[in-house]
């Protein structure tokens, strides 16, 4: 079910010093009055910060008149939105039908081993976040994964591990 139970968060909203909320200003200015702007605003915010900082919700609500509850409801409904910071590189391992029958599980395990994190987690150095997704649309190349905007096909455990190791090396 898409509706997740969320623990109530009693902490204060993140202080503006942590994330520079003014980065959102142009986005809000262009979309403030548009019909159906809620999802594009959240998508825009996520494009800026990589995730949806808690404080951004308050700012959007204040400046657009959208309800906090609606914002939060939408943010938790769609798989795209993240409420926690993510790594610089998001590794999306495909678990669509074609990739599943071509043993995508092995690719995920190889990634978990290489990165030392589980599905959905982020490495401590904030370089990688590991996710599984359903179909990247390159099914003939299954198994497939995507890092950033780059898609890699016909993978096996070794070649997949090699790809992230190389990215890690280049980041250092």
């Amino acid at each position, binding site marked *: 079910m898409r509706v997740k139970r969320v623990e109530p968060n009693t902490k204060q909203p993140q202080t503006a010093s942590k994330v520079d909320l003014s980065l959102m200003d142009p986005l809000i200015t262009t979309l403030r009055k548009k*019909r159906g702007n809620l999802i594009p605003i959240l998508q825009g915010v996520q494009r800026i910060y990589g995730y949806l900082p808690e404080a951004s919700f308050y700012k959007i609500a204040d400046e657009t008149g959208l309800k906090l509850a609606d914002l939060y409801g939408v943010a938790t409904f*769609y798989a795209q939105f993240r409420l926690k910071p993510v790594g610089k590189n998001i590794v999306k391992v495909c678990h669509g039908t074609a990739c599943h029958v071509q043993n995508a599980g092995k690719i995920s395990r190889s990634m978990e081993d290489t990165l030392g994190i589980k599905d959905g987690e982020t490495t401590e150095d904030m370089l990688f976040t590991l996710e599984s997704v359903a179909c990247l649309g390159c099914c003939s190349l299954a198994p497939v994964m995507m890092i950033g905007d780059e898609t890699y096909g016909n993978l096996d455990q070794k070649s997949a591990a090699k790809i992230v190791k190389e990215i890690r090396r280049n980041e250092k």
Partner: protein
Amino acid sequence: MEHIQLTVDIGSSGIASGAGKVYDHLRTIVEKDNLAVNLKQTSGIGMCYKEPLLEVVDADGTYLYGDMTPELAEEVIHSHLKLNVPLKQYVVHSNRIQSDHNRFLDDQIRIALRNCGVIDPEKIDEYEQHNGYKAIQSILSENLSTENIIQTIQDSGLRGRGGGGFPTGLKWKFAANNVAIEKYIICNADEGDPGAFMDRSLLEGDPHAVLEGMIIGARAMGATAGVIYCRAEYPLAIKRLNIAIHQAREKGYLGKNIFGVTGFDFNINVKEGAGAFVCGEETALIASIEGKRGMPRKRPPFPAASGLWNKPSNINNVETLANIPWIIQHGASAYAQYGTEKSKGTKVFALAGKINRGGLVEVPMGISLEEVVNNLGGGVPNNKKLKAVQLGGPSGGCIPEHLMHTKVDYESVTATGAIMGSGGLVVMDEDTCMVDVARFFLDFTRKESCGKCTFCRVGTKRMLEILTGITEGKGVIEDIDKLLELGEQIKKNSLCGLGQTAPNPVLTTIKYFRDEYEAHIIDKKCPAAVCKQLLHYEIIEDKCTGCTVCAKVCPTNAISGERKQVHYIDQEKCIQCGECFNKCNFDAISVS
């Protein structure tokens, strides 16, 4: 080297295989050597299994080279262009060379895909050179009436390619009959079926065809604005759509008084999806465009009466719309000449899974599954036996080998218990466990259920629990009947198409592969050796060298043995993780 045309196929699959590097390298060579050739890019001929592709068209004929690398492409330039000797070993399709690969393209009837892999999708001029925007222009110059356009679509027999198969002309008629000042035409490019990529390839390869289809629809129904709802996982499709829209606006094909016709105002915007399968459903999609959680609602009212912003709206799939300009141009009967009595025209399929030639094909309706898989797809690789073909994704089902003569048309496919769906065709061989496949789909639908209605929300969860139990060896024989009963209930009582079809993968696998369910439940065995908990690992004494690698990787210390001595697995401690099997360098571990 007169009039030589070099074309590199740069779509998502191509890029993932390295087509971008091939193109860049070619451009460098062409510039450096000042070659008198025309180098261009295109997208999505569909031969994904041979990507990156480079096509050379010279005075003699056409040669499509596959599996290109920058180095090989350079070799092609050298040998084919400079010495005039085509490198036959890399040619995957040619009108000059006989090969079985040719069938992949030659057996197709390409209507929706007519321009894919032919034109540069980022250039409106190329689309226009290939009869682009001629259909709408002829409608306007001949002043064809709304009824006339809709009648042509009805006569063509075109049915919705998004899965439902509803007659497109009729749908347009409903929307046309609802008079309103504001009216919408929506293109469904959410393509949620995991294992399908028809719409992505179409949008990447021929975005203008979809725009033209929408403009014609707008003319026929009196729509005032268009929205393309495209999934966010398709960045290249979104980029090319936006380029196409921009170009069309500049030419006056979108905007106010388009094509110079006073009062014909129509504009199109792209909305990015946010990752929810259920948003492919019409009412959920509308809710999502309006900025709400993508939850379906009860119908009626149907979108044709009250859709986006409570205005009459018409929703069509990408492929449906791409067919429209062709039908207008060539006439209804030209389209209806293909297909069967109730399913006319052609259908695009995305071939994937255990198949030699995976990719995108467009075939006439009425062709058999066998022909698609064997003639076009080249059959199953590695001499394995085909077990089933999955059609329709999470809403569809598995058609077993003995029904491969089934015709591809809406009625015949539905009769098997599967559905035609949007065109995802995943081939499964003897190494695929059908219980695991059913569990896979239920896991998907359970996660994607929006939670609004109980049967879908709780029912899929219960079905998944039962299926997981079976794959873990905890099933009891009554489980099969429970799944059947639960499945029927969910189908009957769910609110939207997601729940109404979610049990299909389970029901069809029970129908055709009951023996596999029983093997899991009674014998506690997975015949395809997929379900981990049912596997049995053993060390082959003759092959074990006593290298100790397996003992080291075993997380439960289930493997013991002295160095240089044969090792043993304690079956009590073994958790079937398969680590030893993966790490053994001597193939000394058997799995059954």
